[in-house]
């Protein structure tokens, strides 16, 4: 096996219920030598010399994404600047049977961009142009490497913004968001990436360039776009995204509320939702998560709180005012002992800083931790939180809870110290048990971080063989040779067999008159 699988890391989130070797997700270094050389030749022919990396030291820069526990050095890294360059490389991969993995900013938390030792890593960070801000159409067209927050920055002068806001929005890319169907704190009201990406130019695993969806809704034919979004790089690589821009709200009110415990905070959340109020966000942190955030960013959350809620209301002023009164009343009814309303952007930013930095902040109170991402029906929240607390006390493993309370998306942070023998295993056991809790309550094994390499082994707990087999029919249609991010999402690859009526078009570069057939 590859000697590059790092188990030495302790800096980032650590997870590993299944080693990547066991999922056949990573390939063997040294495999595909001749084929890789052929792909390398194509890459060097179509893009600048700085866009092709084969030097072992430089390659190691790309050995992991945000799930740093898994490390694999890719055989080759390419950084295309155009769709044509990217398509040429993918086509070469297809022709030579070389697996490829797409990577945006590398912030993913499920190892979706974990490279292949026998494959090519296609990095979109040099495709960073915001092509169009179309205020009159409420759309933007952007390259895949464009940073999430930069879309909002470009749209704000026009009175618009891009709604999906993962915590990593200052560095994560739109292409990565598209691949993972990323969420964020505000998806309670505004939905996920899949609700905001209306079109994409996709390079298929065979290197063809196709347009799916676009400026207009309801494109005739199968909604391939809807399947591609969230497919974690297994159906191709997006080279542009047409995204929805949302009008900036007339008013935003952000409320920080302190509660004695998560029970009261959970009850207040249920009361708010049951009353028909739909806040932009309802986030919860428990005492341990608050402690970590305080240590890291001094967010000055209410002292002595067993839980805090961050509730954000936005929309037309007349509605927000009314909803605010309701939310305030529900919180007080359920034991809130302190309510703070952010009255200016600086105060609002401080409230959010505590929440958005929570994952990293946990590093202040524990040398190692696992970020979990499970979903439960919101009404099961109190029961599941109690069960997590029991798991924690019976195992002696501390768990900090940070989550999107409004939609039942939990992010338990399982704390441990890897220098202590057995601690890592104990933490992984608790982390796995939390996922089992989510599944047994009718929930999901991932709400926004993706399956990647990390949770492929959990897929059979949520889906039957027939379910997974049916999903993979789509995979076979797009990628019959199984070269697009193989080993991710599905625990067992499906053999696709012959492609009925397989047709190959002329090479895009040949078509464009830019190159002869390779």
């Amino acid at each position: 096996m590859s000697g590059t699988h790092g188990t030495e890391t302790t800096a980032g989130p650590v997870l590993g219920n299944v080693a990547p070797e066991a999922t056949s997700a990573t390939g063997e270094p040294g495999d595909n030598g001749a084929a890789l050389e052929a792909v390398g030749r194509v890459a060097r022919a179509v893009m600048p010399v700085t866009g092709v990396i084969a030097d072992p030291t430089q390659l190691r820069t790309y050995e992991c994404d945000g799930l740093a526990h898994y490390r694999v050095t890719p055989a080759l890294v390419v950084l295309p600047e155009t769709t044509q360059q990217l398509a040429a490389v993918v086509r070469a991969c297809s022709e030579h049977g070389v697996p490829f993995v797409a990577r945006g900013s590398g912030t993913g938390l499920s190892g979706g961009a974990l490279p292949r030792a026998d494959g090519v890593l296609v990095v979109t960070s040099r495709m960073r142009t915001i092509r169009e801000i179309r205020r009159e159409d409420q759309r933007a067209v952007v390259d895949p490497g464009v940073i999430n927050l930069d879309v909002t920055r470009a749209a704000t002068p026009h009175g618009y913004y891009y709604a999906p806001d993962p915590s990593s929005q200052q560095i994560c890319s739109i292409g990565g968001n598209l691949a993972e169907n990323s969420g964020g704190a505000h998806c309670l009201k505004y939905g996920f990436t899949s609700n905001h990406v209306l079109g994409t130019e996709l390079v298929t695993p065979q290197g063809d360039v196709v347009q799916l969806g676009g400026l207009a809704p309801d494109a005739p034919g199968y909604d391939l776009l809807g399947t591609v979004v969230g497919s974690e790089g297994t159906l191709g690589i997006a080279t542009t995204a047409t995204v929805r821009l949302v009008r900036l709200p007339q008013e935003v009110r952000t409320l920080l509320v302190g509660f004695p415990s998560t029970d009261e905070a959970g009850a207040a959340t249920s009361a708010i939702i049951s009353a028909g109020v739909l806040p932009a966000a309802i986030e919860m942190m428990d005492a341990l998560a608050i402690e970590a955030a305080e240590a890291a960013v001094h967010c000055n959350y209410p002292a002595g709180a067993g839980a805090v809620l961050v509730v954000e209301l936005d929309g037309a002023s007349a509605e927000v005012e009314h909803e605010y009164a309701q939310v305030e009343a529900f919180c007080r009814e359920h034991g809130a002992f302190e309510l703070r309303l952010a009255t200016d952007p600086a105060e609002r930013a401080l409230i959010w800083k505590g929440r958005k930095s929570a994952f990293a902040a946990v590093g202040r109170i524990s040398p190692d931790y696992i970020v979990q991402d499970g979903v439960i029906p919101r009404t099961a929240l109190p029961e599941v939180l109690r069960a997590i607390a029991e798991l924690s006390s019976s195992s002696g493993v501390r768990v900090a809870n940070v989550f999107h309370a409004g939609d039942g998306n939990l992010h338990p942070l399982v704390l441990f110290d890897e220098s202590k023998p057995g601690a890592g295993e104990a933490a992984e056991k608790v982390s796995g048990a939390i996922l089992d809790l989510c599944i047994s309550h009718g929930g999901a094994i991932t709400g926004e971080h993706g399956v990647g390499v990390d949770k492929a082994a959990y897929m059979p707990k949520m889906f039957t063989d027939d379910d997974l087999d049916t999903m993979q029919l789509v995979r076979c249609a797009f990628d019959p040779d199984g070269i697009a991010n193989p080993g991710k999402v599905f625990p067992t690859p499906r053999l696709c067999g012959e492609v009925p009526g397989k047709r190959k078009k002329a090479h895009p570069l040949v078509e464009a008159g830019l190159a002869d057939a390779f």
Partner: protein
Amino acid sequence: MTTTSSTRLEAARAALTSACGDVTDGSPADAVDGVPVALVARPASTPEVAEVLRAAAAHGLTVVPRGRGTKLSWGQPPEQADLVLDVSRMGAVLDHAAGDLIVETQAGALLTDVQRTVGSAGQRLSLDEAVPGSSIGGTLATNMSGPRRVAVGTARDLLLGVTVVRADGVVAKAGGRVVKNVAGYDLGKLVIGSFGTLVVVTEAVFRLHPVPAARQVVSVLFAAAADAGRLAQQVVHAQLVPAAVEVDWPADGPGAVHVLLEGTEAGVAARSAALVELVGGRSAAGDLPAGWGRLPWADAPGTALKATFALSALPAVLSAGRDAAASAGVGLTLRGSAGAGVVYGALPADADVTAVRAVVTRLRQACTAAGGALVVLDGPAEVKSGVDTWGPVPALDLMRRVKERFDPERRLAPGRFVGGI
């Protein structure tokens, strides 16, 4: 025309009858867009649907899935329709989890039954019933939506999970029962708008929304397409969060832009006052305008068009349609969502094919130029055979490959969908 021989048909009937018990001969009323149907099976459960599809596969029958049959003639007529698989006996609303704002329903359930069930808890499935009597399955298969799509989107934004049966009888689920879930491929999206050509949907889970306390409609009349465009732009760029922005332009007479505002009593009053100040017009509480959310061909079936376009192209699309209809000497009624970029058009049943083709061509140019498409959803037989109904479809090759993987024998509604899928 069916090519199934009578002996084969008898063997198939026996197999189907043991699969689900409720199998009858197809009547003229069962014909699918003029294509005669030999048999109709009405399974009562997902396992029975699977049995029926296995029996159909074993006996080489083509199958057209049917919900309540309100949109069965949409698309092209199937090449063949040996068996109609009718899911109307699967009409139960299975579970309404009010606290979680979700509903789980069988595919044959009426949209109105779902609304009644969830309405008792002050909630709604935010899919307007564009065609009265629609089932959940038919609504998904045709990707139908209505005015409220501006605020909450369409089926693709509301569907959380599906149970489907493949052409080979394998039952599969995707998605789940929670609002947030990124585990596995989102097959629900693939099924929406697939016109029964990919799988048979048997159950669906949707997210729900609370029914707002109050609503108000602000209506402004317009005489020219440019005015409609200006009004729509003013409305969508205001910060008043409309639930719907409709345009309604009858073949004879002025058009109107209707803006629906929903929310709290006080909020709606303030927002509609602000909107009237911005765009003029009248504000009316309570009742929705006549024809609200109804497709323009509802009262007089003819040729049914669906135009999609980038928002700012509204005036270009409206005027292309009106100008083309005027030159062709036919009346064109237009109605749809100015806030979403989707407008439906109705041409009279007696319009000749040349006139229809002229209107379709002009409208298609305008829509395509605006990043959209023009589809002839329904129409008389001579229109369907004499006009390119689906128009150009990008990525058609990839769609064909998806169809080939799911239904390699082309058993499900063959020929009904884009590119002859």
